[in-house]
């Protein structure tokens, strides 16, 4: 699907309603979240800018905001970025931006993307203090190039090492976890800002796997290729209901040897992957990595025996977190 009008019109969810409490009240949040039924089609935008890394390995940060604007415009159908963002987020609530800095400085969510999102959020009417950039630890955030700040009059940026985790665990299936208080107590809505990577255990880490960073002991969900751990974790209500939109960082990535930084397997897709359907996002990301692995002459994840099984699990009747059938994903590449 490459026609923008068809893309917007063809989406089962119609207009973006992420930040509309009125819409949520009318439909019921559970109904909105259960929208990914057998007939649903999920929209994903992959926006690229080949010039992002035209000067070797250095990201041209000045181009990131424009790429973000193109991605959001394509996704929402609104050419004016501020107008588009007003349809995505509630203006009077705390918006969390969950980044991923686990891979260290070389392969973490880029600060330029975080700053671009923060800029548009503020222009859309979100107060600086109502924007909370977070991850597991201060070190992870610093790996992204971010500065720690707890001053509520400015954009806040701190980790769960400061805010802590809930004492009471919550459970779904194999996941029995203690959630980050930033998720449960601070944020009304979370925008997920993962970075695309190969993952030794899970196959791929992107949208759903990034939620391992919102629990105290992610290592307890690593068995069996993180399956069904990833799917079970994303089914937990606080995650499923609050983490509603993903702007995936695929500006740089590792196609093999992840999730750590392996510069010899670094690759520059120069892309942002945007959507609401976390399963469709991961399915799309997986295919991108597979294509790159073929190009690089390494076995596909399927051939290597570690495909991301959790994606199909997340789409199954027990989880119903989204769509993994490529025929039912509306993919718009710009």
């Amino acid at each position: 699907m490459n026609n923008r009008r068809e893309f917007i019109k063809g989406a089962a969810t119609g207009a973006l309603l992420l930040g509309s409490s009125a819409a949520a009240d009318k439909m019921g949040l559970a109904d909105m979240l259960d929208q990914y039924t057998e007939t649903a089609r999920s929209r994903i935008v992959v926006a690229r800018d080949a010039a992002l890394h035209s000067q070797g390995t250095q990201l041209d940060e000045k181009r990131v905001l424009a790429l973000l604007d193109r991605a959001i415009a394509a996704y929402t159908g609104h050419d004016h970025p501020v107008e588009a963002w007003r349809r995505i987020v509630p203006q009077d609530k705390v918006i969390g931006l969950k980044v991923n800095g686990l891979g260290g400085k070389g392969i973490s969510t880029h600060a330029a993307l975080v700053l671009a999102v923060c800029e548009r959020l503020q222009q859309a009417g979100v107060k600086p203090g109502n924007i909370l950039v977070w991850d597991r630890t201060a070190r992870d955030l610093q790996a992204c190039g971010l500065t720690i700040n707890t001053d509520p009059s400015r954009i806040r940026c701190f980790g769960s090492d400061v805010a802590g985790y809930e004492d009471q665990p919550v459970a779904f299936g194999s996941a029995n976890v203690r959630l980050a208080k930033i998720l449960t107590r601070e944020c009304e809505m979370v925008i997920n800002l993962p970075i695309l990577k190969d993952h030794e255990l899970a196959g791929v880490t992107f949208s759903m796997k990034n939620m391992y960073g919102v629990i105290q002991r992610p290592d307890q969900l690593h068995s069996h290729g993180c399956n069904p751990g990833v799917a079970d974790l994303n089914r937990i209500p606080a995650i499923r209901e609050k983490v509603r939109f993903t702007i995936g960082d695929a500006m740089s990535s590792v196609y093999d040897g992840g999730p750590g930084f392996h510069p010899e397997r670094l690759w520059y897709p120069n892309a942002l992957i945007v959507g609401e359907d976390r399963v469709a996002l991961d399915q799309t990301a997986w295919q991108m990595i597979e294509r790159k692995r073929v190009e690089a002459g390494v076995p596909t994840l399927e051939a290597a025996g570690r495909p991301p099984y959790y994606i199909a699990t997340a789409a199954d009747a027990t989880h119903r977190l989204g769509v993994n059938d490529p025929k039912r994903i509306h993919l718009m590449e710009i």
Partner: protein
Amino acid sequence: MIFRLKYWMLPIIVGVAVALIVFIAPSGCKKGKIDPFPASDAVAGWQKTSDTRVFAAKDLWQYIDGDAEQYIAAGVVSTTTSDYKFKDQLEAVVDVHTMSDAAGARKILETGQSKDANTVQLGDAGVAYAQSVIFRKGPYLVRIVAYESTPDTLQALMALAHAVEAKLQSHPAAALAI
């Protein structure tokens, strides 16, 4: 001449043994513990920019997430890590994984290689890429990774790697200092 132990000798022997344990053993342990991380300026241009962090095998996930499993499977005992900077041009991280034996270090080194690896003379075996150097020495697996690519990156990394190797060389089977 046959030495016969007398009862009156027992307290003396015990006393000597205690003295050995209290005074000699700790200093022996200190000598056995090594710090594999070169200090700032120990290698030309390199500054050590962070404290050394230590992760026991059970906590390794906190540092490298899912990567930890392959190290655990290969018998990692602990991992120490520190950040470095070279002449304000590039930043790097040095990880020293202490495995339970040399076979564990070999397993990690060999399974992690890609086809563009260049063999280098470091430790028992080593490989280098444009931005990283990995080698093993006895039970140690060392990985040095630069975050930037400059014309001097590999040469600088090799100098740092040789310094780490030298520190490991002098105490091939010692525990890393924590």
